[in-house]
């Protein structure tokens, strides 16, 4: 009962923290609100007129939305890159930031769910997917599997961060033998969300570009690039605006982990390129489109971006790999921007467009997202950024010891207990 009452205070305190801030904070929130409002307007336009407001058509039935979805599942899964060294190996510098990594995973999951919602033609019927009242096609449909693991991962992460934050707020040590098994469970779940998301594509024998065993490993490898890269950038921002202690050691360690991830990612890409082009079959047309455009036409479609992404990833790898470069923060940050952008292309449009071009009857439909489509996407990113901002603000206030349970004899303890 007492716990419940403290939890009430915790919720109220968090609400106070997220509604009060500096001028910069309010400006940031106003900016995000503007993005979200723009997205909401664009989405209402889409709801009124149908998905014709996008540039997707029968020839290319998934586009920008599902591309973003695939990318963001990766970002969500990549929290494991921090969770594993932090909890399994008790590596202190990363343990300092593990909670923030989990918060980013949560925000990414919110965006994943929204990108699926905006992609469906009849969002009001999404309850048809639910067990009990709906009719989920389990175990046949991988989409049902994906919904299961995504929700499982979301709930388990939400539970972990709430538990850890609440315990610190209440001035209590967390119960290791209780929460550790949950955290360990979240590790295979993180792998599973991205594996199953890859299965969504791999399971389509109609699409030779996706119907390859390397896709799930590639998904994971690229996720372990984009996720930590975004984290590394975010940590540096939070360190400034949030007055939260994050050591350079943590950042350098992430940079080092990124070197492994990017090397493996590029290696897997090489496997794919070799198989496609050394012994080409009729199906090479998709990889052709990916790297060169098709039919010798001047407009190259996705090909320019494919090369840009490749260059960005190679550039990032060089910085991550060489300690002298990696240990310069501006360079490391630039490499993170490159890696995140590279993977965003590679796993977004770079995955979707070649997979669906030419279409099943050989037609080349040149797709680029419509303005309305992009604006809806911007709105979704706005929601994700807002969710992360608010959650991170609470976490940092607790970490700094500003948000604590005042009553009773709860002894004040130092910084966030997840750090120990």
């Amino acid at each position, binding site marked *: 009962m007492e716990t419940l009452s403290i939890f009430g205070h915790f919720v109220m305190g968090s609400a106070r923290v997220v509604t009060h801030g500096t001028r910069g904070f309010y400006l940031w929130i106003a900016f995000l609100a503007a993005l979200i409002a723009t997205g909401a307007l664009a989405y209402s336009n889409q709801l009124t007129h149908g*998905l014709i407001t996008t540039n997707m058509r029968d020839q290319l039935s998934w586009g920008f939305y599902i591309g973003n979805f695939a990318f963001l599942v990766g970002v969500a899964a990549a929290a494991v890159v921090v969770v594993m060294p932090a909890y399994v190996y008790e590596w202190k510098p990363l343990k300092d930031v593990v909670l923030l990594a989990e918060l980013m995973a949560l925000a990414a999951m919110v965006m994943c769910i929204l990108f699926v919602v905006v*992609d*469906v*033609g009849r969002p009001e019927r999404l309850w048809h997917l639910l067990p009990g009242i709906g009719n*989920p096609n389990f175990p046949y449909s991988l989409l049902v599997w994906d919904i299961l693991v995504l929700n499982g991962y979301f709930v388990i992460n939400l539970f972990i961060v709430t538990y850890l934050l609440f315990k610190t707020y209440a001035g209590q040590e967390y119960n290791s033998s209780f929460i550790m098994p949950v955290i360990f469970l979240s590790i295979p779940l993180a792998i599973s969300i991205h594996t199953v998301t890859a299965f969504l594509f791999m399971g389509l*024998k109609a699409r030779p570009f996706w119907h390859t065993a390397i896709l799930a490993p590639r998904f994971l490898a690229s996720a372990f690039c984009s996720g930590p890269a975004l984290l590394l950038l975010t940590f540096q921002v939070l360190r400034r605006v949030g007055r939260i202690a994050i050591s350079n050691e943590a950042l350098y360690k992430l940079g080092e982990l990124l070197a492994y991830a990017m090397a493996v990612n590029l290696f897997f890409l090489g496997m794919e390129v070799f198989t496609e082009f050394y012994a080409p079959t009729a199906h090479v047309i998709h990889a052709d489109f990916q790297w060169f455009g098709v039919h010798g036409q001047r407009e190259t479609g996705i090909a320019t971006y494919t090369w840009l992404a490749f260059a960005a990833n190679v550039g990032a790898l060089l910085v991550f790999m060489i300690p002298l470069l990696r240990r310069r923060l501006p360079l490391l940050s630039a490499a993170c921007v490159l890696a995140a952008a590279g993977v965003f292309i590679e796993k977004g449009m770079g995955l979707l467009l070649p997979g669906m071009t030419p279409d*099943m*009857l050989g037609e080349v439909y040149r797709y680029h997202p419509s303005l309305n489509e992009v604006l809806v996407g911007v709105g979704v990113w706005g929601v994700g950024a807002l969710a992360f901002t608010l959650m991170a603000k609470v976490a940092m206030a607790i970490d700094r010891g500003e948000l604590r349970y005042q009553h009773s004899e709860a002894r004040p303890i130092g910084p966030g207990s997840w750090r120990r």
Partner: protein
Amino acid sequence: MKDRERGETRPVRGASRREFLKTAAVGVGALAGVPGAARAFDLEAFFQKHLRELSNQDIEGVLRRLEDKYSRQYGKPVRVAATGPLDGVVYGYGLDIGRCIGCRRCVYACVEENNQSRDPEIHWIRVLEFEREQAIRSIDLEKGNPYYDHEKVPAEGMFYLPVQCQQCDDSPCTNVCPTGATWMDPDGIVVIDYDWCIGCRYCMASCPYGARHFNWSEPRIPTDELNPDTHLLGNRPRPKGVVEKCTFCIQRVRQGRYPACVEACPVGARKFGNLLDPSSEIRYLLAKKRTFVLKAELATRPKFFYFYG
């Protein structure tokens, strides 16, 4: 676990045409003048369960509601039937690409019969044009052109390959559907419950034949062009945001008629019949003709066969 592969539409199995027309007429009459009925029924539509969980009585209600809705919308009586599959029938289709002249009469007969949207245009049949020279080596779909536009067909040196739903026996589309909104009925027709489809388009990604089409906007059909003889799982007007496809003209074939494309073909290139009946024309042709199926390597086991030579 429910058997989704070989499920069946329970409604009025084998019911006669007269019976369904009678109930249809009663339905339209009874609901036509009820004020405020539309709004109440919209809510009912929202909470409507999966078709295969509805009782026969529930389905009757759904049919009446839809008939009322369409009749108002198009200003003429529209009938919606839910005729079930016939016993001992599995439909098969044959197309002689040696005969096809690429006139696209099948395409437009299909549009009219099956109430496809005219704006934006949806075609369930797509006719690809190939250069004969090239196709001697192999049919390479990337070399096909669906947008040919000649004064006269067949054009010199060209041949034609019409493609529509291949009604696969091992259909990827029904496997991937997350809500079970599409399935194969016992007569082998892959159908879609337009009231259950959430419009995720996973089936479109999975279909090797580009046979599934999405209603990217509200489909538009001129009132006078609407075919009022419809089937719940076939040619009834579709809402926006759901997927549709060829059903072998389910509204016709379950009454023993030919699909509209078969009737429209001026050169008799299109054949149709019961695969389970050894004396059927389709069985005779399958036995005598040289036959192939599209993308056989994908093992989808189409019930749509191409004849050549």
